[in-house]
């Protein structure tokens, strides 16, 4: 008696390239329509980019060692073969995901990162009879390969999207949206500059240029979709990381010395720009979304384009739930804070030093952040996995914004953006992730109990809920995984 009928599946997720086939464009029958075939083609494109990078840094012979030679040409051939094969796997992996550039991009990034762990760190050493490179020095030595894998994944994803997209479905980005992106970028850069350069004396004048460029790139990659600020925030954080890889790590050496330098030393030098890049990305995404929403609110006269639900009733309840979930997360975090003796640091926010004051401050902050979580991620989680996924991603954002930036600045210091500071804040990172996981899980439970948006009465509503879920599933799982992956590995690999 307890089993209940299954939800109707997402309306158009059965076939390959389904996400793009909803348009009216002609259905082509090219062989590249098969996900694996399209994946091979995309993988070749990604392999070319990665291969060029390896050629420039002279690491192709490492690949060639698989077939017991050290010829760069053979290495390139082997590399391309592997790239094509892995690309096929990617094509199959994302066959059920929606085919939009920005969304597939994150799948590509996490796929590339995963293959870095599986390939150069594990399988390659095993094939050539060496111990696997799972330890930190091994990972640090292979950092260039990680960046190469990220580029490979990103290129493969973008090319695959292009291949899967129907000819008629491509839309030209509009000027207004590009302008909105630039405005968002400059605005966020201004906030960072005012808050940190002028007030706290951290020299970050460069954020304006980067902000404008990143702001321009954001709508180009992701378009002007209508979505909540919460998912945009998480996506923006990952976008910020991508911007750092390109703008903070790759371009400086390329422009300065004319060669790629993805070594650990280069990463260490660029490390103090990673947090501002993350903040910039997150801020751009939120500002871009908010500007869009504000513009719609002001200028769109068709109420169908607006949210049906008024913020009053359930929004207020969500706020209460957010505070409750934040308290639950805060209690989990307290465990970490007590063990690593971090409460006095929190107390310093109010000028006090006692752990009790720290606990109070900590719990209040935890609830405030919980409330913002509720406002940002209301109706965005539909099962425990999505609740935890959004929660940990949000927790990571607050580690960068809170622990690395605001806490030191508000207690009279400068942002802890250098490698040493990041390493010192590692316990706080663990705490923030645990906080986020508890926050997301508890909030999901509360919302599930009182306001289950996917709990529907009829076919139309069920389809709407399925669509909403599909939008979330479009790239969110990749973002959650990528965020935690970045959070746990990058600080260690760079500073450890």
């Amino acid at each position, binding site marked *: 008696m307890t089993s*209940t*009928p299954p939800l109707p599946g997402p309306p158009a997720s059965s076939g390959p390239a389904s996400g793009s086939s909803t348009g009216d464009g002609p259905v082509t029958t090219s062989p590249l329509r098969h996900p694996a075939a399209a994946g091979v083609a995309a993988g070749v494109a990604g392999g070319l980019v990665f291969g060029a990078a390896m050629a420039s840094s002279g690491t192709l012979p490492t690949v060639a060692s698989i077939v017991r030679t050290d010829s760069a040409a053979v290495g390139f051939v082997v590399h391309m073969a592997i790239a094509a094969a892995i690309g096929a796997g990617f094509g199959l992996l994302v066959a*059920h*995901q929606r085919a939009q550039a920005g969304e597939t991009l994150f799948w590509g990034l996490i796929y590339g990162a*995963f293959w870095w762990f599986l390939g150069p760190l594990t399988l390659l050493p095993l094939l050539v009879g060496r111990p696997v490179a*799972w330890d930190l020095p091994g990972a640090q030595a292979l950092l260039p390969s990680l960046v190469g894998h990220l580029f490979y994944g990103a290129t493969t994803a973008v090319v695959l999207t292009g291949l899967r997209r129907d000819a008629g479905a491509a839309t030209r980005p509009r000027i207004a949206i590009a302008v909105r992106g630039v405005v968002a970028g400059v605005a966020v850069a201004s906030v960072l500059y005012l808050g940190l350069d002028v007030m706290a004396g951290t020299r970050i004048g460069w954020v304006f240029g980067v902000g404008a460029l990143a702001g321009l790139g954001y709508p180009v990659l992701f378009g002007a979709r209508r979505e909540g600020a919460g998912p945009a925030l998480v996506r923006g954080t990952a976008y910020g990381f991508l911007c750092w890889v390109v703008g903070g790590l790759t371009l400086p050496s390329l422009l300065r010395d004319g060669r790629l330098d993805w070594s650990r030393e280069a990463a260490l030098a660029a490390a103090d720009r990673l947090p501002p890049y993350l903040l910039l990305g997150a801020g751009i995404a939120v500002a871009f979304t908010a500007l869009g929403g504000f513009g719609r609110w002001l200028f769109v006269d068709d109420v169908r384009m607006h949210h049906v639900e008024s913020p009053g009733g359930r929004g207020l309840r969500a706020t209460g739930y957010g505070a409750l979930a934040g308290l639950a997360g805060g209690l989990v975090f307290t465990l970490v804070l007590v063990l*690593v003796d971090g409460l006095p640091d929190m107390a310093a926010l109010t000028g006090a030093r006692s752990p009790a004051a720290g606990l109070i401050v900590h719990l209040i902050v935890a609830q405030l952040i919980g409330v913002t979580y509720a406002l940002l991620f209301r109706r965005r989680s539909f099962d425990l996995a999505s609740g935890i996924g959004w929660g940990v991603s949000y927790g990571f954002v607050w580690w960068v914004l809170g622990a690395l930036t605001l806490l030191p600045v508000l207690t009279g210091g400068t942002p802890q953006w250098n490698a040493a500071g990041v390493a010192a804040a*590692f316990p706080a990172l663990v705490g923030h992730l645990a906080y986020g996981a508890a926050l997301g899980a508890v909030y999901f439970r509360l919302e599930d109990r009182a306001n289950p948006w996917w709990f*529907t009465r009829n076919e139309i509503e*069920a389809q709407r809920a399925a669509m909403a879920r599909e939008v979330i599933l479009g790239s969110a799982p990749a973002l959650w995984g990528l965020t935690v992956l970045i959070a746990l590995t990058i600080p260690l690999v760079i500073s450890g």
Partner: protein
Amino acid sequence: MSGQDQRGSPHRRASPGSSEQARWGALAGLVIGLPVGVLMAAQGMLDVSGNGGVTRWVLFAVSSVAVGAAIGVVTGYRPRGLAVAASGGVLVGLLGWLVFALTVAPVLAGQAPTWSAAAAATAYRDLVGNLLHGGLTGVLVHGLSALRARRSPSGTGPAEPDPPVRVVIVGGGFAGVSAAQRFERLALRGVPVDVTVISDSNFLLFTPMLAEVASSALEASHISAPVRAAVAHTRFRHGAVERIDTDRRIVALAAGPDPDETVPYDHLVLAVGSVPHFLDLPGVAEHARTMKDLTDAMSLREHVIELLERADHSSADPVEREGLLTFVVAGGGFAGAETIAELFDLVHRVLHYFPGISPDEPRFVLVHSRDRILPELSPELGAYALDRLRARGIEFRLGVRVAAATATDVELTDGDRIPTRTFVWTAGNRPSPLIATLDGDHARSGALVTDPSLRVCGLDGVWAVGDCAQIPDLDNDGSPFPPTAQHALRQGKVVADNIAAVLAGREPAEFRFATIGVLVALGHRTAAAEIRGRRFSGLAAWLLWRGIYLAKLPGIEKRARVLLDWLLDLVFPRDIVLAGRRATGETAPAQQARDGQPR
């Protein structure tokens, strides 16, 4: 649309079936954990020789199984694509690293976890292991669930479950909506019910504030909440029930677009409430106004203001004028006392607009058959209420009844005739006429007699709650529960639980509830209250009344609106807009005859 079609297919969240998914996930975690563990051991990462070796192995196995089970639970139960499963696996694997390698392992080794970068660097190899293990487990879990989906007979996963049980709730008052809300919760917990609420009004009326609508203190729509908003996930049907066939288990709706529309049910909850009962007194049904719904309150308000408009310039016949300015309420219960008090407030707060009426002209009379008003309160509070209202000049005719009514006067059983154009009847209620058409045991009042578990005696699959039911109070020698909102709310909740219990093959629970308290507002800044045996009166009780009922209003929006109404009432005069009427020059009785109003 026939009833069968209307049932439609239910769309509920699929039950995760977590335990089974966890088992499959754990298996996958173990399967992937084996090669990963062997690899780590072969690479010298699991120190199997030392005395901590066994612990390491056990911890590794436990973490593999736990992470696998978690992956199964969070990603497995509804395959959403390989990518989602794999990335979910990576996420869980990484979080598992935080739990096991950074937290549990140091604890097992007898150290406090530090979560420092140094500790993380030491455990970095486990991070890689966990990440690969998680990602590959996610892939395997997805493969397994896809395989099982293909193997299962329907080809779509778990076997098609039984259709949900159809529950029809008739009535959208406190009891009916409370039952529907409870069913929404129960459905989320997996109780397979398909609930339809049928009501002839599409809103839930907050009756305690009805008198304040009549007195122009509150906006009418502010004390009512749409049923659709209150139970957003329940099917709602706005319509009047014409007939219930308890043998065929169908509810027939009164003629709409489709004259034969019926709604089938497996369990029927009757919460149809009560209607005024005029005891067949001559002229009362035709000339008395009632205070049961929003239209009554709004029409009473407009009627009173219209009479004031007329009295302001009418100086002809003193008897006519007396009738215009005399307001009679029959019944000294809550509704009667609150109505007379609010009428008094309304008239005196708007009288400054009507210079032709002297403040001592309006006359207010309450007719009550017993010796003391408000019998639900203790005698002391009843006497207090009587004193307060009398002190304002409200007349009380105690121990007499209304015998008859005409358009221009009310006759009492002691032979007295009171000329009045405003006669409000609150002296009797009976269950909705629909109840009389049903078989089953009826009480003398006409209400359906239920057993303590709210099942209607003599009818199978029919439950009754609220004012239309006579429910024995086991803690009070089986005497019936009073017809109040606080009881109706609890009965609605219990009836939903009881139906769920019956569906699960359990015994339904008996309804037991001790009245929390009673509150009666007595007009401007005065009230009487008795809560858990404690008595309150005057301003304190009035504040209590406002606070409690404000909190009980359905929905925060209505709370905000009523609060605003109250605040504005502090600084602005009562509104005397006659939105629904134009002066015609007709006399009131003629107009009433034309409108068919009031009843």
